[in-house]
């Protein structure tokens, strides 16, 4: 009895943990993804693939943020009700790209005509924008609905400072 009392909870806990783990790592069938989802994911994967070679140049969080800003910029370009707030936009871009600018200022060449890290970052950014414009062309209403979701979600998560649009009237 003592053995059962001791071991049973451990077994139950192990089963529970295994079950929870399986649930949190449920595999995903690619065929179940919508075209919009595939496009979003393909562009993100491609950009990360491109940028991953420059180890240490970008933090994964920065690349994610760059992708989010690109999505919001594409929404501003294609959807009504999402006017770009240039002050907010410039502030966020400066946060992300600022370190790369400092990198170029520290070079010994006074008039460096090419800032390679900055060029790489902007290449990634424009890839994100292009991908988002493609998604927008595929499903304009669905794409613009993402803008409303982002506005709501970021506000709920106390992350409104990441928004680059003017406030809604």
């Amino acid at each position, binding site marked *: 009895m003592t053995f059962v009392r001791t071991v049973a909870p451990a077994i139950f806990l192990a089963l529970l943990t295994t079950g929870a783990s399986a649930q*949190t*790592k*449920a*595999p*995903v*069938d*690619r*065929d179940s*993804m*919508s075209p*919009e*989802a*595939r496009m*979003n*994911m393909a562009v*993100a*994967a*491609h*950009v*990360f*693939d*491109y*940028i*991953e*070679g*420059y*180890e240490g140049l970008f933090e*994964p*969080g920065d690349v*994610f943020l760059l*992708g*989010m800003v690109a*999505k919001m910029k594409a929404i501003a370009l294609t959807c009504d009700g999402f006017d770009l707030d240039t002050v907010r936009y410039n502030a966020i871009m400066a946060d992300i790209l600022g370190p790369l600018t400092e990198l170029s200022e520290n070079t010994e060449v006074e008039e460096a*005509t*090419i800032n*390679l890290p900055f*060029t*790489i970052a902007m*290449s990634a950014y424009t890839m994100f924008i292009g991908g988002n414009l493609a998604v927008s062309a595929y499903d304009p209403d669905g794409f613009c609905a*993402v803008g409303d*979701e*982002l506005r709501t*979600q*970021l506000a709920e*998560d106390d*992350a409104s400072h*990441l928004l680059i649009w003017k406030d809604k009237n």
Partner: protein
Amino acid sequence: MNRFASLCFAAIIALASFAPTSAHALDDDERTALAAILALGVAIAAARHGGSHDSTSDWDEERYGKPFSPSPGIVCLPRPRQCYSDGRLSHRWTRRIYQ
């Protein structure tokens, strides 16, 4: 290899950026060198991903990792370290899983 291909691309961008201010047009040697760099970059990219697209129903794990769903309607991609809610980028889930 990926880094090299990216550097090739960046080098081409850099060379292209110089073009408008160049005092002279590209000569034959420069054109040949540029074409060689471009061809090499394309060949490397093709070699890296060429064998991964046999089936449209399989994830390219080199690019996506092994996607998983932590909750219904949510899909996370380990390699790009991003999560999607109903196919749309999710700040909340990405932060929860990867940050």
